[in-house]
């Protein structure tokens, strides 16, 4: 902020100064201006470094040298990645920072990683009590106060200086997996999408070797059946909970699961088959997604 004001001042003065200054003085002024541009702030160097490290696979760049000790680097932190669909609807990075500071009331760092992606670093202890509720609340507040739809992924605690680029990658993947497999959920906690990430990394051929995958595709389960299976798995394979969520009679659920068993050979009421079907649902979704869009960009 300060730097910007100073730059603007000099730029405004420039035409005037230039006419008054000697050639040597002019050179000196230009060099000074250049230096300003060459020396980004510490947060900016961190941001540039993070971008470089996370954009290229296997990048290995030394951490930049900072002018002053930079808040999160020597600490245990929690990182939150924010992603918006349409950045033209947001109120900008500055406003985001205002909201985040008001919400957490502690030291924190916000980096704008790209036009629609931001990283928040928080000291780990801020999150101890009811961390999930707190993040859910933040999500609602951002959606109502700052902009349109936001998706967020949230890391576990880690030591910033050691694992920051890794963590950013992981958060991106988690967010991607979350948006794909749990689109109605908008906040994704790293560690809760391991299975999805794993399936996403399998090649098509490997996925086809999942038991029953090809037959599954040929079956063309209808939307109602897929929803039933999803809900059954989401409710811990509880018949009564699932029937309640789908608002169907228990007998109807039994009937659908029986029909599915008949068609596919999988009895999702057994744990093993339930896990298979979960994998298949993930693989199926992934295939549909790939057919519709560019493959997700997964670096690792």
């Amino acid at each position, binding site marked *: 902020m300060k730097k910007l004001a100073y730059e603007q001042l000099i730029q405004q003065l420039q035409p005037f100064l230039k006419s008054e200054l000697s050639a040597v003085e002019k050179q000196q002024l230009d060099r000074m201006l250049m230096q300003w541009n060459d020396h980004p702030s510490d947060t900016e160097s961190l941001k540039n470094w993070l971008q470089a490290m996370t954009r290229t696979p296997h990048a290995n760049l030394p951490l930049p040298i900072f002018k002053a000790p930079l808040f999160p680097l020597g600490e245990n932190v929690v990182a939150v990645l924010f992603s918006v669909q349409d950045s033209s609807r947001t109120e900008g990075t500055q406003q985001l920072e205002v909201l985040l500071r008001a*919400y957490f009331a502690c030291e924190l760092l916000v980096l704008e990683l790209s036009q629609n992606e931001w990283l928040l670093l928080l000291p780990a202890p801020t999150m101890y009590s009811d961390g999930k509720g707190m993040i859910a*609340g933040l999500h609602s507040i951002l*959606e109502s106060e700052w902009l*349109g739809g936001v998706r967020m992924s949230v890391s576990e605690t880690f030591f910033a200086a050691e694992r920051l680029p890794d963590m950013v990658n992981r958060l991106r993947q988690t967010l991607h997996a979350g948006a794909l497999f749990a689109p109605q959920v908008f906040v994704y906690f790293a560690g809760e999408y391991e299975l999805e990430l794993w399936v996403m990394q399998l090649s098509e051929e490997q996925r086809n070797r999942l038991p029953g995958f090809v037959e599954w595709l040929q079956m063309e389960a209808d939307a109602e059946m897929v929803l039933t299976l999803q809900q059954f798995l989401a409710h811990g394979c509880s018949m009564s909970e699932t029937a309640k969520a*789908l608002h169907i009679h228990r007998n109807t659920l039994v009937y659908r699961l029986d029909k599915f068993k008949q068609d596919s050979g999988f009895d999702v009421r057994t744990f093993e088959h339930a896990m298979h079907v979960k994998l298949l649902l993930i693989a199926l979704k992934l295939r549909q997604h790939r057919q519709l869009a560019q493959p997700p960009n997964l670096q690792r």
Partner: protein
Amino acid sequence: MSGLRLNHIYKKYGENNIAVKDFHLDIEEKEFLVLVGPSGCGKSTTLRMIAGLEDISEGELWIGDRLVNDIPPKDRDIAMVFQSYALYPHMNVYENMAFGLKLRKFPKAEIDERVKEAARILDIEHLLDRKPKALSGGQRQRVALGRAIVRNAKVFLMDEPLSNLDAKLRVQMRAEISKLHKKLETTVIYVTHDQTEAMTMGDRIVVMKLGEVQQADTPDALYNNPINMFVAGFIGSPAMNFIEGSLSEKAGEVVFSAQNMELVIPAERAQVLKSKGYIGKQVSLGIRPEDIHDEPAFIEASPKSLVKVVVEVAENLGSEMYLYLEGIGDQTIIARVSGRSGIKENETIQLALDMNKIHMFDKETESSIFFNENYVSK
């Protein structure tokens, strides 16, 4: 003018993934509209499109006389109410309600006025200095409402705002939100998957299934004149019983037969079945638990709609009793009778169906054969 018009709205996430299909409805100014349906039916997606949090794939959204498809959320004159979590943990109640306005650079005096007014309406004036941590769930929910109220928005959007609260508090907050709606005279669009919540709160209810509106009508109309089996089964608790059987004509009367039962359809309804060509066909009969009777007088007056059943379970709730009955079709039938009826488990009893309250559904399309397009709500 702050009614809404959803003009053939779609949300598509790809060819085969249509979350909302042809949502077409006028919402009146000051109406309390509830969107209800099972998980994944598109309620939140619809609400988020109205809020501007999701793009509309197809169709038009009008708020008042403004087409708002491309208007960002903050300029839509709407306020969202979320679950009780959505408060700034380190600010007190006053600051929590004021902050949104502060961000929008409202003058201090006006902020103060609005916050105090909202606090008065919500009866939380004595809590203004408290931090969220020191509030109960219900109080927090009220503050969350307060944050929306201070906006003076014309339309309130609420997505399952009570889902974090325990059952008792939920009932209480339902009543409070309804009261609040009357006080504020705003349009409310309220999402829930709980049909009881929908029935008690809504002026009108939209029942959705797999992205499609099934029926949009008053609670009374949904209950008494459901358009199809889905709505009939979704609205009402315990749910409507469905019995599969066939229709035939015997001695000038139309008879519904299923395993272990034969019921004579009253003349007026029989006529409808005849004229629509259902004689000799398979249908599903629907009867609500409260329309199955055990009172001797009713039974005596209904010799043509008696059933003999075995009571598997009798659940006595005091004022009323739920009977889980076997012996008709292969499904358990539920009846709701008086808590004083003295019926015991494992008894074989005789009950009578109120044939003027029965519903009849096409076996293929599941649509209601008696559906009345011109039904007038009570």
